[in-house]
Each structure stands twice: as C-alpha cells, then as structure tokens.
C-alpha cells in the first residue's frame, strides 16, 4: 500500500520535500496555513547574491511539484497524535488526515521588531523592516518616506533580533547581512543620489559570492558600512530619524539623521511550530528552533520515530541550503518508510 507523508508547511522546504517524495513513489499531503504555497519567498522580490527574481525560484518549485502532492491551503491544524505507528492529524475544519510520517517544514517567522523598543519600529513613521522594504521593491512602486518624499539618506541596522541577549536570541540569522547589502544596492539603483549606510557588528558573508556583493556595494555603489551597534533612535520634528551609535572602528560616538531606517529582522521560530512540536514530543532547542536527533549525522530525524525536520524549522538558513536540506529529508523519510 502506498505510504503517505503529512508535510506541515508549504514553503520552499515543504514544496521541495514533497516533490522529491513523490519522485520516490510516496504520496504527500502539504498542509499550508496561508492561502497560497511558497512561504516567505512569495514576498521576496529579488534574491541574493545573484539578484534574480524570487519568482523564478518559486515558479520552478511550483512546476516541480505540479500535480505531485495534495496541497491543502488555509489548513489550520487542531491536533496531531500518533497511534500504533500512524499519525492522525485533525484540522480545525474537522477533517482528519492520516499519514505514516510527519515532516515539519514550518520554516520561520520574522522577528517582531517592536521588541527592540529603542529602534522605534511601530512608533516612528520612517522606521521599517527589511521585509517591508522588499514588499516595496516587489510592488514596483518607488520607495518613499511616510511623508511621501524620496529618501535622501537611508540607514540599515543589522542584527535586529539576532545575536542579541536582550531579546533572548543569541544565534545569527545568517541571511540578514547579505540581505542588507542587496537591499542597500537596490536603493542606490533606485535613487543614485541617495546616501546609504549599514550599521553592523560584523558582516557575515558566509556563502559563495556574498563577499563579492559586499565589495560591489562599497566599490561600485559607495555604500558606507559603519561598525557599531545602534543604541537608540528618535524621531525628529520633521519625521526624520535621529540615530545614536558608536563607530567602533574609530572609537567615537556618532549621531546622525536618516530619512528612512531599515531594520534587518532575523528569524524566529513560530509559536505554531512550537505548539505542534510540543504536541508530538519533538525536542525544542534553547533557541526555540526544533532539534534533530543528531545535528551532524541525523539532521532530519527527531527523537520521535516518524517525525522529520526540513529547512529553517531547525534554524536560520538560506534558500539553496533549504532546498538541499529538504531533498535530503525526503531521502531520510523514504528510508524510514521502506524499513517500517
């Protein structure tokens, strides 16, 4: 009898894993809480480091998956339980689904920038997040301040909600640095006369061609990177944003004004992921991401037989790594189902 895997999450990891499982002859049901599959990628205009449209990748994933999985959109899970080797999942609609394995591909949520109160997100008119900036790029509209003017000075704050003991997130979110570099370039493309600044602790250009993009940002686009964590910002009477930080390379305090401040928000685990993981007894790390059986050699299995993990549900990751990880998870699930 054909085995079934219940894939929770219809983002990059869920779509990839489902496609690979289908290739291996396993049927899948993807449970996506949103009205459309694709996860955060749907809101991302262009991807680093190539700056190809995010839509390209999403189209590929959609075509790859086309017809291979039963996709349930708007699926809100009420309960999951395991009975005699079978997983029984109840949706809020009352529908019950049965599967031989569960794959957590629930990804991440973006850090709520309001928790960094000193940056004034949600209070000052011209403080936005990197996700909101990406939405502006995606819309094709020109970037404007809240007062309707093209920004002449834009600041990017790195590590918002990442590597920050105060908010309880000690981990690096990996992709924010290069996102900030990419978005800074895009602002300069849109407004060649705009001054763009990046305020960072250290720039973690960990993958291929990231460092090249960083050099391009400095050399070709004259984006200025200042090492120093911002202490606070405030709104001026004209709605510009007053920044206070220390330039730690020159050991001098710095005070400057920008028209627009972009907060590069990191990854956090979602409350829904934690609820479902707790229900099944899957391990949750101190960083609140899910814990695999062994982070080196069993990175896709969990301590609960039949429950698997793929993608950013295990911690911050970038698109190529999520795709590779999800394919590897599919192999692990196949192995499990063959032997169970």
């Amino acid at each position, binding site marked *: 009898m054909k085995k079934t895997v219940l894939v929770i999450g219809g983002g990059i990891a869920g779509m990839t894993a489902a496609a690979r499982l289908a290739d291996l002859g396993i049927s899948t049901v993807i449970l996506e809480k949103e009205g459309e599959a694709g996860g955060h990628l749907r809101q991302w205009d262009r991807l680093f480091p190539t700056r190809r449209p995010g839509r390209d990748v999403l189209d590929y994933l959609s075509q790859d998956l086309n017809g291979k999985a039963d996709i349930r959109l708007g699926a809100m899970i009420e309960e999951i339980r395991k009975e005699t080797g079978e997983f029984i999942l109840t949706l809020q609609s009352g529908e019950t689904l049965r599967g031989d394995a569960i794959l957590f591909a629930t990804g991440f949520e973006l850090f709520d920038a*309001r928790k960094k*109160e*000193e940056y*004034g*997100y*949600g*209070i*000052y*008119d011209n403080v936005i997040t990197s996700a909101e900036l990406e939405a502006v790029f995606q819309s094709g509209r020109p970037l404007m301040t809240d007062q309707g003017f093209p920004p002449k000075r834009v600041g990017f704050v790195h590590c918002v909600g990442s590597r920050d003991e105060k908010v309880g997130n000690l981990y690096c979110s990996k992709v924010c640095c290069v996102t900030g570099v990419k978005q800074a370039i895009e602002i300069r493309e849109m407004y060649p006369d705009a001054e763009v600044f990046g305020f960072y602790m250290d720039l973690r250009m960990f993958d291929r061609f990231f460092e090249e993009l960083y050099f391009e940002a400095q050399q070709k686009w004259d984006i200025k990177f200042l090492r120093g964590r911002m202490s*606070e910002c*405030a*709104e*001026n*009477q004209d709605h510009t944003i*007053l920044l206070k930080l220390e330039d730690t390379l020159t050991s001098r305090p710095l005070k400057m004004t920008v028209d627009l401040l972009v907060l590069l928000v990191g990854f956090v685990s979602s409350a829904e992921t934690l609820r479902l993981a707790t229900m099944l007894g899957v391990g949750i790390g101190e960083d609140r991401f899910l814990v695999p059986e062994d982070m080196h050699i069993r990175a896709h299995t969990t301590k609960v037989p039949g429950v698997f993990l793929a993608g950013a549900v295990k911690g911050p990751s970038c698109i190529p790594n999520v795709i590779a990880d999800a394919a590897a998870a599919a192999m692990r699930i196949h192995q499990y189902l063959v032997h169970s």
Partner: protein
Amino acid sequence: MIPEGKRKIWQDYQKEIAIDRYFYVRSCVRQNFFPASEKVFLKIMREELAKDVYENAAHTTCSGIGYHSDIVPFDTTMTVIARQFALMTEAGYRNFVTSCITSFGLYSEVMETWHHFPDELKKARKYLKQATGREFDLPENIVHASDIIFKFRKEIAGRGRYRLIHHLTGKPLQVVEHIGCHYSKMFPSKSVGGAEYPYVLVGMIEEWGGDVIDYPERRHCCGFGFRQYLIKANRGYSLANSRKKFESMKPYKPDFILTNCPGCPMFLDRWQYTLSEMEGVTYGDQGRGIPVLTYEELSGLMLGYDPWDVGLQVHQVPVEPLLDKIGIPYDPDKKYLGKEGVDLGKPAMPPRLKYP
C-alpha cells in the same frame, strides 16, 4: 509618530501598585531642592485620598549617592536597606514607597540581588542582626511615590480644580516629561511603561488634559548623572547634558517640564539660569525659561493648592507664566513669605533669565 505603537508597549509594562497602607521613606536631598514636594504628597495621600501613610523618624539615607559614587560598599548598602525594611516590619507595614528615584532603583537592585543570590540576603540579615539586633520581612510591594500618584491620577483629576489646558485658548499645554534614570532604565519591568517610552508621567499629563512632547533627546540624562555633578571638575558634562536636552526640546515650545526624580528638576531648573549666565542663552517664552515641576507640585496645582504652598517660589525658573496659562491665581506679594508670613527675603533678579 504613531501613538498606538507606544500604547502597545505600555501594555507590556504594567506593575502592581498597592492601594493603601504605605511605609513612606523621604529623600535625602529633595527637602532642600524642592522642599514642599514631599509635604504635598503626604497631604494629597492623607487628606484628599484618605490613605494610611506612615513615616518613621529613624529612617536614614539609603546610601544611594554614596553607593553610586563608589564610596559606600554594596554590603553596607544592603545592610542599610535591611534596616529600613526592619523599620517597616516593626511598624506593621508591607508596602514600601520611596520618594527618591535613586532609592527606588537601589531598593529594586537590592531586592533583585537577594532574589537571585539568596546568600546575600542571609548575609544582610546577619549583619543587621549583629549591628542593631533587628530583623525584617521583605516588602510585598515596592513603588516610587510617582507610581502612586499615577495610580490615583483619575481621582486627582476628579477632585482637581484645574487642568493642563490654556485657559484663554482652550488648547492643551505642551509638556515635556522626564523620568529619573533610576526609575526604569535599570529595571524596565519595575516601572510603569518601561524604559524607552515610560508612561508614569505621561499618564498624569494625559489624564490632566495636557499633550506630551516626544523630542529626540527625551531619553537623555538630565545632567545630574552623579559623577558629572558630584565631581566638581566634571560639572561641564552636567551642563552639557542639560543643554543638549534644552536644545532638543526647544523647537517644540514646551510649556513646562514634568519630572519624578530629586536631581532632574534641580538640574533642569537651576542649569537654565547657569546657561543663561554662561552663554546668554535662555529657553522658553520671552527669555523666561521653561518651568520645571515635580509631579507632587503639579498634583498640588491641579488640586487648587496655593502655588506658594507647594513651594514654587524656590524655583530658579519663574513659574508665573505657567500659572497664567492654566489660570491659577497667585499673589505676587506673598511669593517670598514663609510660614506664618515670615519674610524669606527676595532673591536678586538675574540679568538674563527674565522674571515677570
């Protein structure tokens, strides 16, 4: 500015404030700086709100100024604070109220230390017992006196005779609120509203009809900063800090500044005179400066107390322009009369800071 964003943050910083039976400890310095403030607080609590507020003459300094100046060691501070708690325990009270912001910060710091390091509490008990024979219970509730006025702000508004409205134009007065650093910057969760957007004074201003000014240097220290003032050679830093704040708030044309710390009203008030003499710069309308009030003084004014009974004659910056805006009557001839009409002597008028 998106006011709703601040309200969301304020919801995260609620604190429990006892409603009666307070053990009240005065500040070391406030009775010199703004001598009527504590008296006004006690009058409001006892006569307006009918609350039980107890004071003990054996209460001493909390050692805060010495502690923050690296003169008094922490073990000594803990023992001194243990003694205050012993006085509270002996009097049968459990709700501890401080007049001083630095005391509030230090009591909070000691309580946190004892919570996380119980051996330190044992040590403090032992030292106190050895030194005085006293024992103590921990307070059930520690608040700053401004928390209590905040708690009863609606009652005060209900009993009040005046509001923070310009009595001729009907427009809300524009108010700068300035909290003491030790109120919430050390322990945001122990404050009303947190450290970034504290609500304790904002709540009073809004309830009493005024508008709050949010200016870029709102969070900045008043200029006291302990070492900036206590070490004479550093006083330039103290002035520079105050000046930075005045320059930042100036474009918003504040009608007055409201404070909840012993040092803040002192420095924001006195340094305006000093800056006028040093740099020839004055702030506020027509060179008269920006009046600076304590929350008790403002509460007293709202309730209709005579401005000279709440101690406004000892302010360096003249308060009459503010009284005129609110429509509070006052007798200029009685400004420098003390208790029972004793002439206190009229101070010399400064050449630059203008007086009515």
